[in-house]
């Protein structure tokens, strides 16, 4: 990771010095051991604040809208796919972006790591594939591969799809025979079990909307749950309203979600929001051979009309 960090700082410094960009959007060290925070760097002396490690789980494509001037952004595989989605959906022109690509080796599941401890983790560091963690009662040395986030384990686009610079050599991509084992498991449930599964999933939801707000494709100026004329959804803790939010948000993401995992990363209640979105990703893949954010020239399948559509109903 240190070589990545050095390269990120070097490239950022160069871009700022030559005034090719007005700011660089990346990650900085947080105040907690496994926390990092998105940051915008506009001064040359501040590039030292930029870091990169296995806890940079948020998606920086969520931070590239509404800037003046050209900006640089640090992009993992998934961030780059959401940048493509942003460009295709006219949220930012390609020319306004300088993409510093990071071949990603996966992000860690912080909840899973934290669950090994009864008390708070006070130190975190990593050395290649080894994670070192310390609380006031114990220390753990973990193999990073055992603690990858679920979406990272299933990721087939670790390398940035689009970039202007790279901070390291491209990594090997995996191909999976069954890329959606989790969705299949839910599909195989009977209706009642399925319902219980989703009910249990949202049980502790406090409707803070961290999932939605961390999501790079949830950029609607007014989300349907915030609309008041007409009001589509109740705002309280009624189960139906809570579930309606999650179901509808997932459908709005159909064919656009890159499974970056930012929603799960952001959720303070550890809700596996991906259980909602992944089914739509699978359907897009099976029905339209579509994976979001791979092609600058194609609009998402539910946003495109084609006379050659294979489905009969459209003819």
């Amino acid at each position, binding site marked *: 990771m240190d070589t990545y960090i050095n390269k990120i700082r070097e490239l950022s410094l160069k871009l700022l010095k030559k005034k090719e960009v007005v700011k660089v959007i990346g990650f900085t060290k947080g*105040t907690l051991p496994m926390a990092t925070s998105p940051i915008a760097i506009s001064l040359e002396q501040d590039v030292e604040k930029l870091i990169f490690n296995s806890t940079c789980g948020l998606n920086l494509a969520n931070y590239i809208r509404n800037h003046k001037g050209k900006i640089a952004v640090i992009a993992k595989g998934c961030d780059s796919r959401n940048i493509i989605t942003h460009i295709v959906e006219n949220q930012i022109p390609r020319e306004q972006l300088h993409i510093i690509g990071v071949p990603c080796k996966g992000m860690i599941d912080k909840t899973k790591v934290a669950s090994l401890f009864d008390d708070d983790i006070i130190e975190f560091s990593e050395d290649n594939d080894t994670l070192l963690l310390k609380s006031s009662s114990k220390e753990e040395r973990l193999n990073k591969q055992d603690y990858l986030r679920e979406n990272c384990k299933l990721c087939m686009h670790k390398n940035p799809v689009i970039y202007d610079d790279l901070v390291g050599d491209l990594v090997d991509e995996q191909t999976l025979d069954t890329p959606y084992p989790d969705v299949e498991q839910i599909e195989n449930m009977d209706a009642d079990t399925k319902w219980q599964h989703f009910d249990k999933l949202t049980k502790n939801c406090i409707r803070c909307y961290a999932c939605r707000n961390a999501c790079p494709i949830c950029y609607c100026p007014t989300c349907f749950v915030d609309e008041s004329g007409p009001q589509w959804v109740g705002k309280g803790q009624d189960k139906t309203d809570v579930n309606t939010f999650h179901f509808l948000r997932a459908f709005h993401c159909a064919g656009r979600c890159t499974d970056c995992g930012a929603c799960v990363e952001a959720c303070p209640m550890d809700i596996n929001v991906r259980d909602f979105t992944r089914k739509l990703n699978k359907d897009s893949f099976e029905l339209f051979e579509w994976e979001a954010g791979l092609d600058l020239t194609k609009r998402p399948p539910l946003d495109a009309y084609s006379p050659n559509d294979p489905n009969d109903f459209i003819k």
Partner: protein
Amino acid sequence: MKFITIDKKDWAKGIEKSRKTYQLFGPVKDKNGFFIKSLGKDMLPDMDYHDSVMSVKSVLFPQTENILTTTLDEAQEDHHIMKRAVTDYSPRAVLGIRPYDAKAIELVKLNFDTDDYKDPYWCDAYEATTFVGLGLNKPGPFDFSSSTGSGPFNEEGLDVLLADLDDKYLAKVLTDKGEAFIKACGFDLIADDKESQALFDILRKEAEKNIVSKISTDKLKEKTILEIHEAPFWDDIAFSCINCGTCTFVCPTCWCFDIQDETKRKASTRIRNWDTCMSPLFTKHATGHNPRDTKTQRVRQRFMHKLKYFFDKYDQGIMCVGCGRCVKSCPVNIDIREVCNMMNSYEKQE
């Protein structure tokens, strides 16, 4: 002041006994940590917990609460006349809450129970509730409660404070409500006042030694609102914010709410829900104008309210008890400790 010794072997029996008079709430483990929940039959509070994901505020101020109801059926004489919703205000006891959460209730009380306005829902719930605290022997690394006027053995807002002494609890009875609860449990082993207080003092000092996280608030009062409001750091603090409501919802002192009317067939209910100043909708006017339209304005508002406006208005310190929940839950790690220190040390450049 009265001290009672409770053998842990007798704890469960006493708690069971109290159910004749009280509905009980206490820490319960759920899938992502502990929550203060209503304790159903056969449920005991998990007194070995360290801290809870959500604070105790929901016992008095539920995230969603029915406040008024009416019928739209015009055949009924009282149709369209709002009446107070039926809520059970029989005695409640919340067990094992941490002292910083009790202090938070006292801060919230400054808003809901004033000479001019009394929020009937909150006040009735408060009146009905007995707060049984549990001193925190080993505060966590992100607990900064001792620099907010609270602390691991702070008694403010509590009716009883328990100290965990391995095989027993030592209970310090602080109010009449507390006395009534202890009596309802049948705990009657009186401990020596002087020795017990000395023990509490030792425990408090030991616990405070564990607190490594601190903030400075000493200069907040002397600065003008405009001085801090116009400080140059707000855009940087706000950049990473995604404007979710996590910080405000996990906060034990955030009290803002929104009113909604919901109708199902002929039954109409007026509901109040927690609201969050992080959401643009919080201040959006019916005209479409939003006086707090930008992320920076909203982030600044939250910190200014907690650390400056509240301080100035009530002169009771800051509206933060140092529980560290928002620090740990924030998806982008915006840290109130850092922001507070920035505000406190800010000097305007001439």
